[in-house]
């Protein structure tokens, strides 16, 4: 599948943003983040709001008719893309309310706790609906698995947490506070991504075996001898992207190292070993590496997913 830059930007930026939003109120509720520090609140919630907003706007860049984007809210009964749009709108009121309480009032007690819960739920809802858009596309066997959704639900919080830790360390909070949470999400993301990759090739082969049956009759083999067009058409440009497949193994290794190994070292291991002033110089680059990792992962997510229409073009 062709990885449109705007889609990579959208999923990376909004993944980090909703990741922060899905965790910050919980971390406050459990006393890991202090709500009395308004500046910290601003330093976490405002970038998160900015990222999700930039992400949403960039997702409309690749539309043929951005001015009609409001129509995409109408078909939530059948379309996960529409549900994602509705969820994006629903997430703003609680998120803005919670941000207001934390930044202006310096307290998120009482009714604001509910705004916090709603912030967490709608942020998780966003990751879930995004994952479901891809999960429900049967013609892309790599995506048609629950591991796609699990990937979105774990990578968002993992990258969000990386940013939270980096920012909080600047406010004098030792990353060891987040150690347990970091271990949970690094492990969860590792399981989700590796499980996703483990079935990817087999899922494709299941369909590729049927190429003969799809075109001629079952049992026959087919060889494409002439395409319907001499130049690449829309279908090939959009769904026949092949650049990453050749390097898939290498790219996966890079992704694993940046997205899983780096956070494991920086956020799970080092906090037990180093005092704060030194740690800042580890967690900030650590967060940058994690974000670079997720951007490559999002690109690879598209680039290594094959669409069954390519069987008609003789792709194996």
């Amino acid at each position: 599948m062709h990885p449109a830059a705007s889609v990579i930007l959208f999923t990376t930026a909004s993944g980090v943003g909703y990741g922060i939003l899905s965790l910050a109120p919980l971390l406050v509720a459990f006393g890991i983040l202090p709500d009395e520090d308004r500046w910290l609140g601003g330093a976490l919630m405002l970038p998160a709001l900015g990222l999700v907003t930039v992400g949403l706007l960039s997702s409309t860049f690749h539309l043929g008719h951005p001015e009609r984007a409001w129509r995409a809210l109408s078909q939530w009964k059948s379309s996960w893309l529409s549900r994602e749009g509705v969820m994006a709108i629903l997430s703003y009121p609680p998120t803005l309310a919670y941000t207001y309480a934390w930044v202006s009032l310096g307290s998120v007690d009482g009714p604001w706790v509910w705004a916090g819960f709603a912030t967490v739920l709608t942020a998780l809802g966003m990751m879930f609906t995004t994952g479901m858009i891809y999960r429900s596309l049967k013609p892309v066997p790599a995506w048609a698995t629950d591991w796609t959704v699990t990937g979105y639900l774990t990578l968002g919080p993992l990258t969000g947490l990386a940013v939270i830790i980096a920012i909080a360390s600047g406010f004098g909070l030792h990353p060891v506070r987040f150690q347990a949470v970091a271990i949970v999400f690094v492990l969860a993301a590792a399981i989700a991504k590796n499980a996703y990759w483990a079935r990817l090739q087999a899922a494709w082969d299941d369909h590729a075996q049927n190429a003969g049956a799809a075109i001629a009759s079952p049992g026959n083999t087919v060889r494409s001898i002439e395409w319907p067009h001499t130049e690449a058409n829309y279908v090939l440009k959009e769904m026949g992207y092949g650049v990453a497949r050749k390097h898939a193994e290498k790219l996966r290794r890079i992704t694993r190292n940046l997205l899983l190994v780096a956070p494991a070292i920086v956020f799970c291991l080092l906090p037990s070993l180093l005092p704060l002033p030194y740690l800042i110089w580890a967690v900030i680059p650590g967060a940058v590496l994690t974000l670079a990792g997720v951007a490559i992962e999002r690109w690879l997510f598209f680039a290594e997913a094959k669409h069954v229409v390519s069987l008609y073009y003789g792709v194996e």
Partner: protein
Amino acid sequence: MTCLPDETTRKLGLVIDLDTCVGCQACVTNCKEWNTGGHMAPLTDTNPYGAEADGVWFNRVHSYEVTTPEGSSRSLHFPRSCLHCEDAACVTVCPTGASYKRTSDGIVLVDEGKCIGCKLCSWACPYGAREYDVFEGVMKKCTLCVDRIYNENLDQEDRVPACVLTCPTGARHYGDLNDPQSDVSRLVRKRGGRDLMQEMGYKPTNQYLPQREKTNVASSVNQSPALAPLDDTYGASGLLGWVDRMLERMD
């Protein structure tokens, strides 16, 4: 609404005979010709006379070499256009309501006035039947020539899809696949018509008739004798043999 109808009164669609199709591309051409002035008009082309020509087409014909387990091989021409699926996920994924399936006849259409050009429907189609128009910023697809089949300005016999009308070998058939007594339904029963990529579960309306079994398989298994080279007069007798011998003698 992008929810699919529980059932449609009729199931209009095509039956494509892979045994008869010769890959002449006439249906491709007439589809483009009709539809670039029809319901989804225009079918824009990018750089049509230069390098990297591209454009919107609703119907594409592939060619394959098919080999049976016995090793017998032959060519197969394969028209690929929208199959107006019963379980058309291209419709349900559409966030705007631009894509819809008609309850009256099952035709799957795009309302260009509502389409935002998100392209998700084209990803959801296993058959690559939808093509995006970069100029208009909207998705386009086969309309089953909805503007022909109900067109009262046309003579009755012309109220069939352009691709069907034009096919010189009669490889494309059009009719109601919901009616067990229709010509197309009978044809499907008789020739073992089948769903394309059944495992996808889209329940396509269009049916493909497989190539007929070869009657003389043995002779076609990789033993077609190579033609003798043209300048080799081996075996020439009679007048030609005499001419050959005479010419041999000349220097």
